[in-house]
């Protein structure tokens, strides 16, 4: 297997100098929407039979994650999450650098079963959207119903935004919001977007968010 030279990786938004543009914490707190890129996230596409308890147990042994079988939901344990993509398909995401041990561990644990483990980490980057107007911004570009009674923390969906295809994930409320606001008032979303669409979508998001006062964050 070819080793990945992590130092040579370049995010599809690297040319925008987003870290240099990052607003101060105070300015970010005042913003209606914050946007930031979280590049190089480990992303493993996993296919298998959700009805096979041995498959689920083997994945849990390796990742600690009980794969979600309820559509459009996410399971999270520490820094790993499993996003439901379909009745037999998940995206396991975590910090960059976990690609090798996760793919290797899963393939070993699932040997003999009907499964597919594919490292798709460099296919997409992640744009994080947060703030009181985050939902309003997304609603300009997607047909998903984002009302809190339908789409809340721990939910995900594959859909479109501004004509690009995305995976959307609303993070669990982390409880350390600046003013203690709940996930409904200060939601945080992550968009997984194909590298080739990332620059386009960033441009779209920043312009669409201008009316809400947008701040760039470092991550």
């Amino acid at each position, binding site marked *: 297997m070819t080793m990945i030279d992590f130092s040579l990786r370049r995010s599809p938004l690297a040319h925008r100098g987003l870290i240099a543009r990052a607003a101060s914490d105070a300015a970010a707190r005042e913003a209606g929407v914050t946007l930031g890129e979280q590049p190089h996230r480990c992303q493993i596409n996993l296919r298998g039979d959700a009805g096979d308890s041995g498959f689920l147990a083997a994945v849990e042994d390796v990742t600690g994650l009980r794969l979600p079988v309820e*559509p*459009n939901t996410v399971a999270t344990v520490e820094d790993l999450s499993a996003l439901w993509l*379909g*009745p037999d*398909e998940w995206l396991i995401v975590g910090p960059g650098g976990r690609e090798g041990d996760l793919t290797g561990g899963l393939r070993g644990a699932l040997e003999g079963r009907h499964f597919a483990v594919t490292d798709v980490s460099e296919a997409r980057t992640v744009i994080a959207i947060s703030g009181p107007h985050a939902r309003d911004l997304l609603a300009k570009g997607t047909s998903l119903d984002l009302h809190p009674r339908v789409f809340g923390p721990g939910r995900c969906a*594959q*859909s*479109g935004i501004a004509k690009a*295809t995305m995976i959307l994930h609303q993070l669990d409320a982390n409880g350390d919001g600046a003013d203690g606001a709940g996930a409904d008032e200060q939601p945080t979303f992550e968009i997984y977007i194909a590298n080739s669409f990332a620059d386009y979508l960033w441009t779209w998001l920043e312009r669409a968010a201008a009316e809400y006062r947008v701040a760039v964050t470092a991550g």
Partner: protein
Amino acid sequence: MFLISCPFCGPREESEFSYGHEGHIARPADPDSLSDAEWADYLFMRKNPKGWHYERWNHARGCRRWFNVARHTVTHEIRAVYKMGDPPPAIEP
């Protein structure tokens, strides 16, 4: 635009789906025994009704699964959504 309830993901906008044309067309078990006319009928001829239509859709921007829909081609009313392999439900005219 109308909503289609994906049997896996729930209701989503039509733009997330791609159309798969008429459903429940079985591939002939023994194509070599067919005449050219019979083969052409299987390949090309479709009902194209004005009314209820059993058709296939793919949730292209979602879970990418195929499924069946019973849709009225005039009103776009969707009366049934069901998985591949399930028999077509009876629809009142």
